[in-house]
């Protein structure tokens, strides 16, 4: 059952050819076979999973017609998502041993649907990074080439789907942390509209940008997981009360007659030639399906990176103030309270987190606030306005997801070169729009992703465009070497 889709497994569960326990056993066996190389998991939650699998088996037997398509399906959760009583570290030393006293809303909705949690996945510390090399628990190998990064920050969630261990996982996307690793590992990754998926129970990084979303093998599976987790939640004050339209209803409507925009800034000088070729071929496929393509301009793309690297660190410096050795996590004992704070945070945080906390504290400090934080907030408005203007003339935007394919581990030790990974994904976070990455080719055996962005709350349109493209190509069906390791 390795590398099957949700749709295939849901059918197999209903025709009696497998059981939730058998799927779980298969997933855990595949973790055991691949984990030495991949390091995609921070914890395997076997006891929880077995109880969930048994409950799912009961539901499938009692109510096979009304059971969710996710019932009995194994999945994995990025380790920034809280599960009651299950170790949740956010990839940080400072939260080693932390067991949340409650379960987050998106996760609870999956549990209510009968999904089976195989484990918590490795990620960049507090979701800060684009390669998963910033995890305090070691880097994650890309299933297409374990000497290379899987992207980040949700690298473990991407790698485990690319390795065929589970058909879906949840990640989080603050500046591209779902879409970029999806592109680099050859799977589908979707960041919904900001406010569509509750952030309750998500360990906060940058609260005005963070959004939870799925990794899957197909766009149809992605739509199913999205439909299960989306919708208003009174526990998140930024959760949007608008009704969520069923993404499966319009999934197969195609792109004939649609106007698609290609932002010229998203194919800038930093784009690798192989990525450019793959994405331009994808544009021709969309044209062949009846879409009309035109060049558009988002002039502030370049400066959006600067906006992001002020706003995200500013919000993170505030959100991470809570890690002070008092209520949770580790503590370095010192006689004075201030020294305890200082030493706990020095010992508990890794380099990238320290950089961002300091950068954010600086941008928010009296004397620099206007020049940095306030200015960034104003330019953020400009970034949104440019999207609004483009969406007057086109229905969706198509572009590369990442300027590069998966790069070798250790090759981007300079923070700025790592930040450049997010240049075409982070504008969607600043504007709150939905965005997806869908496999669109290979360069020397390494996957390339096509990004689709639509206006806010047009999540179904993003899925519809991605699905039309996917069904016309077979890149999504190609399996990484780790997905074909025999039992």
């Amino acid at each position, binding site marked *: 059952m390795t590398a099957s889709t949700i749709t295939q497994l849901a059918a197999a569960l209903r025709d009696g050819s497998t059981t939730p326990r058998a799927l779980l056993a298969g997933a855990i066996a595949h973790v055991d076979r691949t984990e030495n190389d991949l390091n995609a998991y921070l914890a395997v939650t076997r006891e929880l999973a077995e109880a969930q699998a048994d409950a799912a088996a009961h539901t499938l037997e009692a109510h096979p017609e009304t059971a969710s398509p996710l019932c009995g399906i194994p999945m994995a959760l990025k380790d920034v998502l809280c599960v009651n009583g299950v170790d949740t570290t956010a990839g940080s030393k400072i939260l080693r041993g932390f*067991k949340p*006293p409650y379960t987050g809303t998106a996760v609870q909705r999956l549990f209510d649907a009968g999904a089976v949690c195989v484990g918590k996945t490795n990620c960049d510390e507090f979701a800060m990074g684009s390669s998963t090399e910033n995890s305090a628990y070691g880097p994650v190998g890309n299933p297409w080439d374990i000497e290379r990064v899987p992207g980040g920050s949700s690298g473990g969630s991407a790698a485990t789907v690319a390795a065929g261990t589970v058909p879906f996982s949840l990640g989080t996307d603050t500046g591209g942390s779902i879409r970029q690793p999806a592109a680099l590992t050859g799977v589908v990754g979707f960041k919904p509209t*900001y*406010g569509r998926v509750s952030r309750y129970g998500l360990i906060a990084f940058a609260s*005005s940008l963070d959004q939870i979303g799925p990794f899957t093998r197909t766009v149809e599976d992605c739509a199913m997981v999205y439909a299960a987790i989306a919708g208003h939640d*009174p526990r998140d*004050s*930024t959760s*949007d009360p608008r009704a969520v339209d069923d993404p499966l209803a319009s999934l197969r409507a195609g792109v004939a007659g649609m106007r698609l925009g290609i932002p010229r800034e998203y194919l800038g000088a930093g784009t690798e030639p192989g990525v450019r070729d793959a994405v331009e071929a994808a544009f021709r496929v969309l044209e062949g399906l009846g879409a009309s393509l035109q060049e558009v301009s988002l002039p*502030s793309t*370049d*400066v959006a990176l*600067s906006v992001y*690297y*002020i706003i995200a660190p500013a919000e993170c410096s505030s959100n991470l*103030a809570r890690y*002070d*050795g*008092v*209520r*949770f996590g*580790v503590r370095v*004992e*010192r*006689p*004075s*309270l*201030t*020294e*305890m*704070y*200082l*030493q706990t*945070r*020095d010992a508990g*945080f890794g380099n990238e987190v*320290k*950089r961002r*906390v*300091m*950068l954010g*504290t*600086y941008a928010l400090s009296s004397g620099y606030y206007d*020049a*940095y934080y306030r*200015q*960034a*907030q*104003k*330019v*953020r*408005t*400009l970034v*949104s306005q440019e999207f609004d203007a483009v969406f007057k003339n086109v229905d969706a935007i198509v572009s590369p997801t990442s300027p590069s394919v998966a790069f070798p581990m250790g090759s981007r030790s*300079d*923070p700025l070169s790592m930040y450049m990974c997010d240049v075409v994904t982070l504008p969607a976070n*600043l*504007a*709150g729009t939905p965005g997806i990455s869908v496999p669109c080719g290979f360069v020397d055996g390494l996957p390339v992703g096509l990004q689709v962005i639509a206006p*806010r709350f047009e999540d179904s349109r993003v899925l519809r465009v991605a699905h039309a493209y996917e069904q016309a190509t077979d890149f999504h069906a190609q399996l990484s070497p780790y997905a074909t390791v025999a039992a």
Partner: protein
Amino acid sequence: MLARIGLSDAEKDRLLGELEAILEHIARLQQVDTSALAETAQVGDLVNVMRADVPEEPIGAAAALRNAPVSDGNYFVVGAIQGAELDG
């Protein structure tokens, strides 16, 4: 000191160079004319979101304290504050 991270001198030296390079890169932001732009703090259009004024079962002291590095009864335990430097 505002960040409350007790860095070693070696860390300070390294971070200084890295942060300077990042700040230099993001300085291009200053060139954008923002005189006609309002600030965006959040992209949603929701304001003053209140929950229903209905009491809920609290999480309880035992669950709230379970993750504390040091606790005593119903309290988090920290070092003495009185007489110590407060502003670091």
